[in-house]
């Protein structure tokens, strides 16, 4: 009996740990990459994977939505959803860019507020995101409306703001400083930094542990002394701030902001998380998983381009993969229920 009780040593516990769930997703990534590699040699007579240029474009394409997905992952782990991220991208792009214009441009939004240091529009943009996130979190925590509805509301409202802000006119000509956050591989570097920060936060801090606890069992979290309402607000603020960051990166990269920017980004961000093993019923998933989900997304898009297949196929296959990922999640949960 005593040898069946808990092992006193942490090392013993670690050695018995089974494969992390991310291993499965990594396997899927390897599988899909190999399929494109083989098809590449068969149809194009060249390698898909061994092209630095292709790989860097691929990562660059997905890392903006990857930044959003890091935040959305945390929301989904609480058992919620955030539909407002795409609109936040558009709204913040417009708002931040209007404070980042150069004085040499005659039709600046605020002619007296030009040539500001880049930190000003960046902080304003992040603040804008924080406000939207606070509204989301407050609605969900205190009015108890479903996250789907609360964030659907802010999604529509913020998109409306983006259009109203300049009456539909694009905002262009950013300062050098502001434009630099979208230059070259900056989006990828920002994604990596964000992913590392939140990987650590989710694993080693109260913030992360409470996030998982709320998603696993909100009632138990409350009884354990977690201030569930306050924590939910924090998580939605984080998600919207990351969407705001993504919005500024997009605007800086294109050197222009338009009200329609970021359309449907929220869906791609959710899809990356789900493909990465984040469970829509809450409590399970990780930033690493989402990062792998993001790469899978990238591989599919660039793989289809590489094979010179129609862009329409990409969309259709993307849909199939999202559904397949959710089916796999539901299947995993069924197995758990049977076991217990």
């Amino acid at each position: 009996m005593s040898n069946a009780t808990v092992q006193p040593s942490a090392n013993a516990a670690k050695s018995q740990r089974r494969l992390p769930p991310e291993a499965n997703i990594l396997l899927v990534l390897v599988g899909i990459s190999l399929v494109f590699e083989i098809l590449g040699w068969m149809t194009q007579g060249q390698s898909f994977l061994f092209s630095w240029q292709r790989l860097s474009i691929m990562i660059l394409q997905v890392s903006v939505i990857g930044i959003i997905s890091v935040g959305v992952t945390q929301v989904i782990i609480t058992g919620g959803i955030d539909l407002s991220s795409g609109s936040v991208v558009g709204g913040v792009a417009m708002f931040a860019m209007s404070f980042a214009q150069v004085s040499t441009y005659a039709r600046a939004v605020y002619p007296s507020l030009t040539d500001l240091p880049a930190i000003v529009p960046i902080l304003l943009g992040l603040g804008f995101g924080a406000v939207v996130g606070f509204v989301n979190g407050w609605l969900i925590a205190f009015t108890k409306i479903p996250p789907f509805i609360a964030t659907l509301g802010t999604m529509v409202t913020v998109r409306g703001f983006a259009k109203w802000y300049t009456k539909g006119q694009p905002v262009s000509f950013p300062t050098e400083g502001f434009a630099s956050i979208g230059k070259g591989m900056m989006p990828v570097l920002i994604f990596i930094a964000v992913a590392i920060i939140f990987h650590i936060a989710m694993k080693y801090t109260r913030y992360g542990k409470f996030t998982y606890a709320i998603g696993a069992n909100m009632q138990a979290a409350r009884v354990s002394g977690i201030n569930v309402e306050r924590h939910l607000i924090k998580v939605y603020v984080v998600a919207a701030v990351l969407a705001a960051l993504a919005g500024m990166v997009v605007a800086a990269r294109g050197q222009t902001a338009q009200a329609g920017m970021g359309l449907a980004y929220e869906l791609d961000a959710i899809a990356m998380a789900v493909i990465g093993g984040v469970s829509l019923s809450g409590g399970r998933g990780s930033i690493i998983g989402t990062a792998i989900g993001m790469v899978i997304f990238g591989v599919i898009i660039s793989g289809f381009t590489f094979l010179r297949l129609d862009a329409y196929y990409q969309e259709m296959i993307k849909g199939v993969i999202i559904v397949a990922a959710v089916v796999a999640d539901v299947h995993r949960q069924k197995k758990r229920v049977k076991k217990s």
Partner: protein
Amino acid sequence: MVTAKTAAAIDRMKRRIEDMGVLSISGIRKEFPGVVALDNVQLKIRPGTVHALMGENGAGKSTLMKIIAGIYQPDAGEILLRGQPVTLKSPLDALEQGISMIHQELALMNSMTVAENIWIRREPKNGFGLIDHGKLFAMTQELFDRLNIKLDPKAQVADLTVAQKQMVEIAKAVSHDSDVLIMDEPTSAITEKEVEHLFTIIRDLRARGVGIVYITHKMNELFEIADEFTVFRDGKYVGTHSAKDVTRDDIIRMMVGREITDMFPKIDCPIGEVMLEVRNLDLPGVFHDISFQIRKGEILGLAGLVGSKRSNVAEALFGVTPAASGEILIEGEPVQIRSPREAMDHGIAFLTEDRKETGCFLILDCLENIQMALITRDHATAGFVDQKTVTKLAEDMAARLRVKTPNLSERVENLSGGNQQKLLIARWLLTKPRILILDEPTRGIDVGAKSEIHRLITGLAAEGVAVLMISSELPEVLGMSDRIMVMHEGHLAGFLDRAEADQVKIMDLAAR
């Protein structure tokens, strides 16, 4: 179809003459993981009688009713309906074979009208195959007239009071013209006047030859309405008697005859100053005027039947649903407890009744489950959890409580009920509570784990912790408590000292 129906009708009459009972079940066994809910039980319902089913919480009454209503499948045993062996595959199947049930929890669709609720799946259709609402409302009115229910068939169910909803449920069950009607605590939500109305309906149904199974905790109802009664205890059949032949005391004795085995009685330890005092705690509609004290080292047992609102008092003390008025004093100091967080600040810990719903994070690992309450308060610098220290504390506590798991990274859902319970106790012990509230600390766990938990509780009391222990198991209450507080329908029914308490006295207070 017609011939089968006719044959059934002839058969039914024959059986009635032979007095076989409209529903007769025998040898029923039902196991859930870790517990035997029913063991070789029997029940015979005669047509035109009201048969009361009696037993303490957890005696197996509701489980048996769910089997008869087709919600659960029995592991063994035979069900004879009108003398024919039947299997009841689903609630719909049971309904179609002539068994309807009024559930303890109301199961109406709030966004639909009264009439739509009653005739769902059986709506009258017009020539186009669409629902004929005129006829639907007329049918409902007819039914209400027959039952003397004064309700608008067109009313939205959401707008009704709980008592009115209960009447709709009853009308719905009656509308099926079933041979067997099961009522699980039908009076728990309605007032005296409506109870009288319900009894009139029941007497009318009885006169029409319906066999009625009536589950209740209320003794006076039993004597007013029931013709026969059957007592269950711990999932076993105790006996069936005619209501005329017995007294209230006889029934209580049949219900409580549980044996005191596998219990770890409380060890005597010095009882100190008053730790927790509650004065006139009140939550309108839930509990009223609750006052008691618990001293250091004392275990106060809290007993009461379903509907006594025991758990609500515990939830109020822990700030889950705070009381509306009343005072809570800890070591003589008045305190405000508006959230679990504040309760924890005052050194209170609360093991909730439902392990799965409000206790465990089933999909997280053991370590996270044990440490969650602790890290909300301590062992974090700038948000970073001091995992090394906490892991050590958690491992030590798990070892002390003898949690059986290969390691602490095992998911909690893979553990047995007893080990899950120990993990939750470990979670609270890490917070070093001064006041420990335990709601059903040993429900649904095996005998070995049970006595370990009992030993642990008494050990904590010996260390000076004040313990409030809610339990439906009277032997547990009697074995562990220094004093016993009994609640009845949200009110204090009385206190019993360890020396004077016995099962009959507790039940006497709990069931009026």
